[in-house]
């Protein structure tokens, strides 16, 4: 059976031959400790360095490539976006946080909070 080695946690998990499994899902299920937040390819908190078996990973889609930028060329993947088909070893910094904000999220929140028809905090509201 194919084996995922979570180097930083010193853990290994196997999965059935022929399956393609989501890397972060396996890590969560087996409590392997990859940090994560959004699960949507936005925050970059779950970036991992692929030590072995990069050819056993399904190719990154646009969202992941865009978020990782040049880290992608350096052998990093986002665990939430990555499907594994065979033996692979990954490592990460246990204290890593989200990657520098792209600004998109904050722009979006600003739009929501400062929308013209947003009456929150306006005179007469309950505050």
């Amino acid at each position, binding site marked *: 059976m194919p084996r995922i080695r979570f180097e930083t946690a010193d853990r290994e998990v196997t999965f059935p031959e022929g399956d393609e499994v*989501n890397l*972060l899902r396996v890590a*969560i*299920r087996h409590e392997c400790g990859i940090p994560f937040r*959004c*699960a949507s390819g936005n925050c970059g908190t779950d970036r991992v360095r692929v030590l072995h078996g990069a050819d056993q990973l399904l190719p990154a*889609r646009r*969202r992941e490539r865009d978020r990782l930028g040049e880290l992608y060329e350096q052998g990093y993947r986002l665990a939430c976006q990555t499907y594994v088909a065979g033996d692979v070893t990954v490592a990460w910094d246990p204290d890593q946080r989200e990657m520098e904000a792209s600004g998109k999220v904050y722009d979006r929140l600003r739009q929501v909070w400062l929308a013209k028809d947003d009456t929150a905090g306006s005179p007469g509201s309950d505050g």
Partner: protein
Amino acid sequence: MAELLNTTDFRAALEDAIKGREAKNASFSKAWANGELSREHLARWAENHYHYVGPFADYLAYIYANAPDTATDAKDFLLQNMYEEEISDVRHTDLLIRFAEACGTTRERVMDIDNATAVTRAFQGWCYAVAFREHFAVATAALVVGLESQVPSIYRRQYPVLIERYGFTEEEAEFFDLHITSDEIHGERGYQIVLDHATTPELQQRCLQLVRHGADMRFAYTKALYDTYVAPDAPVADPEPALA
């Protein structure tokens, strides 16, 4: 009288409860994956799907309110899930409408529930009722394990076909790409919440029942799309009257 299942057996029972009812095997899903639908069919899908997923944060908000303040892990997951649906990036329903517009329909048509089938309206009503009335672990089982956790297996088949056979751009089909991965994680966290908080035999059995019902509802909703929109156009007439 059912006994309390250990975590391994309960998880296996939850997974079993979906088997044989997976929406990826419903007629509309199969026709989609085989490249047999037209853009008009996909537009009708979007006009229906909006009324199932559009209120997803509302369903989760009811579950959130029903969860006690001691269930911090469950509450945090629900809140995060709501945030991601609505404001963490492009609103998910806006991604759905972007796809709908690429199929040739309009935002107004998508948002008008008169354009949904009766089965879609029943599906939405079931989601609201379960979220509002059931124990939070049971409602999580129904909506997250029974419904949301199926998404990756459905969209992993449908997304490549959208690009390669139906000719959509990655941007037009972003709704699907996003949910393939985010619902993997939501589904897994959902399992954890159900395993941790369904702590009596009665709650476990109710979870299993509602996962079966949820999977049945999603299957029926998906099949009704085929019966309503595709079967009348199919070369061989369907002997069954179409659902309307």
